[in-house]
């Protein structure tokens, strides 16, 4: 195969066999000699001062080897940004949500640890609590953090152009309020962590994660240990969806226990703990004002969004910005005003989920349909008129180097039979669309790039060493496929070593859809470098210039005389004897404006490139029960170039399920104050296989000038667009707009009753 022949093929992923047979190991599967089991005592109060913790009885229980409280945590605070460090991972003075960590025990077995928890006496002074972000912003609301007035955690203001004048000039102005509840990730694998600490001060950590390097750096800061001593090891991760990205109390507490006990400590969360005490996604209320020209082009866009951030900052500045970013990455905007607020409440901590609720798109995707209707423009057409194209610059300054949005909209409408169906289906059946752009990476400073190494063995096989992280997306297989393509090898002849913070070079991690674009580029660079070294050495052996040579199936040969060839192993051996061992090296840093900052400077090139997608959904509504069934989804995604089309389609289908069908129709938390009523897989309604629609994935290829073989990202078109598509399809079916997500049957019925009180 020549370069470019293996990429683009539908190949079986390298991790499929182990995952399918159950051979893949997850954190909870691991056992180390002398390992202890840990459990955490959690706050039953939403807001309370800790007056005293008495652990003496627990410490005396036979089998208990270590007990830690906030006193052992030395008051260190975690926050993703320097200016958001407000979370004590094991608080000493105050708890701020039900389920927050208060103390922890490591014991010989889990039963003993649980028994020990029941022997810990905590004295609380219960404080007034607040659970609604709009209430929390009012004067006189309980103050959750001493330094934060009105509980406003983050405020991101963005203004470009003359918004007020543009509204005056607009032909039509619409104002709507949309809202969306918070979600939980419900990854198949509950949170788990294993920590080993040795007498030389080495700390090893296994935990499902989206970036071993980020975890290692944070823990080295929090525990005041050199980075080289903190080693986050590779482990299979049973799903992430954004929920493995931050630093959590679990790994910090397990480390404190392991250090204190001098023994390995494993802690496996229950499903309930995974719901309440790791991360949830933000809920939000959005006020959206949009002004357009007579032909439906955006003139002025104004948005105020209030996010319920829960008790701590987490990824706050990113979360607040994202509802804005998703517009500017999709449509040609001119005059914009954005005010995003993330507000503290006494609820579990909110973090990123499928790129921070971008799927909801702040309601713009539904309001656009409302505007289209008022102007008698087809919803697909109004999107095409406003859609960004290659070479354009977004309103805060990001240039788009490849854009398949127009093609995605056109293909999704054509394949789904949009023209024949929209507005023409019988009552109770409808069709709707959604479109969006998405950033591929974002400025992460020194952590924004990736590097890879590739070393050859004397038998011609090789090992690729990459920081790439795979949470189930297929990233590991992706880098191997790329390297195999460049080197003319079979994928099974390349061994991959990845996602170990000690062994593999720095990588941005499985964040922000960047793995293919950044890690894939680095892997390709390493393979290209190794290939050049091999051809150089072989050129002496074959008496030809490197340019005349090719490498394929373990043979280096002269392109015009293939019978003049040499075995790759022989080339590697010669390189070793010549003291020039073949080690390929590659790296990639996306071309972003590093001065860009979420709050203080939201302008400049935000991501190296952007990908785009459009989704058409068809629904059937039972107008007596209000139940909505999504029957068909056609999703077209501009992934730049599909390295493994099967994996791209799988990602699209997965994103219709996770964050798509379920999040738009079913998934929501029930609360009584700060206590979650449905923190179980039975009562939190993740869609089941029987609830899934027929999905038709369409791959759009724009061959990005920067991406490896032109590839960008492949994960988000489904989840980002399902909300709009479903909301719009319900309107097409019933003639009612439901602006509060999720669109549960009772809301549908209520909307129908309001429309026709006689019914």
């Amino acid at each position, binding site marked *: 195969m020549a370069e470019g022949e293996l990429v683009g093929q539908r190949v079986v992923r390298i991790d499929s066999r182990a995952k399918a047979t159950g051979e893949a190991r997850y954190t909870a599967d691991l056992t180390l000699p002398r390992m202890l089991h840990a459990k955490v005592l*959690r706050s*039953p*109060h939403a807001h309370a001062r800790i007056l005293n913790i008495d652990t003496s009885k627990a410490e005396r229980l036979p089998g208990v080897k270590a007990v830690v409280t906030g006193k052992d945590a030395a008051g260190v605070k975690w926050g993703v940004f320097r200016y958001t460090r407000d979370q004590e991972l094991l608080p000493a003075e105050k708890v701020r949500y*039900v389920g927050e960590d208060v103390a922890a025990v490591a014991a010989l077995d*889990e*039963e003993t640890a*649980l028994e020990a928890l029941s022997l810990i006496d905590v004295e609380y002074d219960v404080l007034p609590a607040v659970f609604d972000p709009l209430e929390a912003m009012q004067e006189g609301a309980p103050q959750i953090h001493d330094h934060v007035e009105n509980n406003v955690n983050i405020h991101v203001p963005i203004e470009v152009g003359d918004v007020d004048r543009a509204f005056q000039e607009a032909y039509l102005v619409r104002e709507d309020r949309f809202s969306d509840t918070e979600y939980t990730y419900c990854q198949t694998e509950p949170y788990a962590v294993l920590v080993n600490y040795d007498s030389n001060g080495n700390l090893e950590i296994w935990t499902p994660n989206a970036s071993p390097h980020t975890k290692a750096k944070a823990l080295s800061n929090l525990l005041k240990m050199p980075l080289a001593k903190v080693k986050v090891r590779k482990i299979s991760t049973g799903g992430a969806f954004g929920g493995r990205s931050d630093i959590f109390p679990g790994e910090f507490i397990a480390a404190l226990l392991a250090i204190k006990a001098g023994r390995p400590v494993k802690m496996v969360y*229950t499903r*309930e703990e995974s719901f309440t005490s790791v991360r949830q996604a933000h809920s939000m209320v959005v006020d959206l004002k949009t002004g357009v020209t007579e032909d439906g082009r955006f003139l002025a866009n104004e948005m105020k969004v209030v996010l319920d951030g829960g008790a701590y900052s987490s990824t706050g500045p990113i979360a607040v910005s994202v509802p804005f970013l998703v517009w500017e990455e999709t449509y040609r905007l001119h005059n914009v005003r954005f005010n995003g607020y993330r507000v503290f409440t006494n609820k579990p901590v909110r973090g990123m989920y499928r790129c921070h609720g971008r799927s909801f798109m702040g309601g713009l995707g539904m309001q656009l349909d409302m505007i289209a209707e008022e102007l008698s423009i087809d919803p697909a057409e109004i999107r095409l008129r406003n859609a960004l194209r290659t070479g354009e610059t977004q309103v805060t300054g990001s240039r788009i180097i490849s854009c398949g949005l127009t093609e995605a909209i056109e293909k999704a409408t054509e394949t789904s039979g949009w023209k024949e169906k929209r507005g023409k289906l019988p009552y109770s059946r409808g069709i709707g669309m959604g479109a969006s752009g998405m950033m591929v990476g974002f400025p992460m400073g020194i952590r924004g790039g990736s590097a890879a190494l590739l070393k050859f063995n004397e038998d011609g096989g090789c090992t690729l060493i990459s920081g790439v992280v795979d949470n189930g997306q297929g990233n590991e297989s992706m880098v191997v496929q790329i390297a195999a393509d460049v080197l003319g090898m079979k994928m099974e002849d390349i061994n991959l070593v990845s996602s170990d913070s000690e062994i593999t070079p720095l990588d941005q991690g499985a964040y922000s859809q960047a793995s293919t674009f950044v890690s894939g580029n680095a892997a390709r660079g390493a393979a290209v470098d190794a290939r050049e070294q091999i051809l150089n050495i072989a050129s002496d052996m074959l008496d030809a210039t490197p340019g005349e040579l090719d490498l394929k199936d373990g043979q280096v040969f002269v392109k015009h005389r293939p019978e003049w060839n040499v075995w790759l192993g022989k080339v590697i051996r010669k390189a070793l004897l010549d003291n020039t061992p073949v080690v390929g090296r590659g790296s990639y840093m996306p071309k972003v404006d590093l001065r860009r900052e979420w709050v203080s400077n939201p302008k400049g090139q935000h991501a190296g490139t952007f990908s785009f997608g459009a989704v058409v959904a068809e629904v059937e509504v039972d107008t*007596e*029960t*209000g*139940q909505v069934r999504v029957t068909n989804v056609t999703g077209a995604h501009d992934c730049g170039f599909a390295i493994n089309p099967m994996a791209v389609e799988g990602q699209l289908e997965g994103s219709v399920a996770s964050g798509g069908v379920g999040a738009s129709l*079913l998934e929501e938390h*029930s609360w*009584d104050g700060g*206590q979650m*009523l*449905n*923190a*179980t897989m*039975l*009562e939190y*309604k993740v*869609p*089941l296989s*029987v*609830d899934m629609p027929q999905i038709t994935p369409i791959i759009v290829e724009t061959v990005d000038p920067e991406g490896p073989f032109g590839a960008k990202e492949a994960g988000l078109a489904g989840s980002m667009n399902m909300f709009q598509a479903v909301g719009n399809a319900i309107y097409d079916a019933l003639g009612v707009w439901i602006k509060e997500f999720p669109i*549960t*049957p*009772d809301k549908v*019925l209520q909307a129908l009753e309001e429309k026709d009180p006689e019914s």
Partner: protein
Amino acid sequence: MRLPSFEHLEPRSLEEALGFLAKHKEQAKIIAGGTELLVCMKHGLLAPAYLVNLKAVRELDFVSEDDGGLRIGALTRLSTLSETPAVRERFPVVAQAAEMVAAPPLQAMGTVAGNLCLNTRCFYYNQSSFWRQARGACYKTGGDRCHVVKGGKRCLATYQGDIAPALIALGATLRMVSNGSEREIPLAELYTGKGRRPLALEPDEIVAEVRVPAPFDGMAGDYQKLRLRGSMDFPLAGAAAVLSRNGSGVCSRARVALTAVGTGPLVVEEATQLLEGQQVTEDLVAQAAEAAYEAARPASNVGSDASYRRKMVRVLTRRAILNAWRKE
């Protein structure tokens, strides 16, 4: 979550099982499929010192035809029940309801008596010990209050079984045995509606079998279930209707039973009065559905809003009656 410790008893016969129950009384719990019991034990809701496992009591695992009716052994798996030809052909509403219980893997584990004896459920009850310790004990856990309706005078935990309404509408009875005695009660009488003790079952008693009388001439039934997902979920509301049509097209017998909208299954007597002896018209069905709506008493404690679920009783009942009537 961990199971509390217990002693596992494995009787080989019904007699031996009854002996264990007589000996250990309240300290013992019967386990069959375990699909509900083990979850409750992990949540710390039950901590029996003894589990009497009936899996080896084969004499309770049977389905047989008897005088035109059915005898269903307590240990019959729900999947077996819905696959048995006599059930499918002669009492299809039972198979229909059994196939809607949870999901296929749970139907393969869960038993008929286990499903009938389902404990009542509530968002404030079916929770871990940690979760529940954040508030005081409620009526169902031996406390003095209801968390669902503040100031409420009684437990509102909801009965959410699927097969009970269908069997009640068919007029099923239960044969219950204890050491040295045995009794037969109408299935509907199994349910007390009381939070602490939702089943009229003595601690030393076992539900041995369900008896379904022979079908009436021209009989057909239907079960309608409201759930948010296409599988797995307990009903948010459910309605079973069994109707018989005589030779002149008149409804000679009608039974409507509801589930998941009260503390036990509800029999809608008024529907019987409205429909029996009448030509079944859309209007009459609407009246019967309205009667079901009036009878339903859902609480906001098992997901979805209670007023929405109550409205759905009207829809489900109408659909169940019409389907049953049209099937015949």
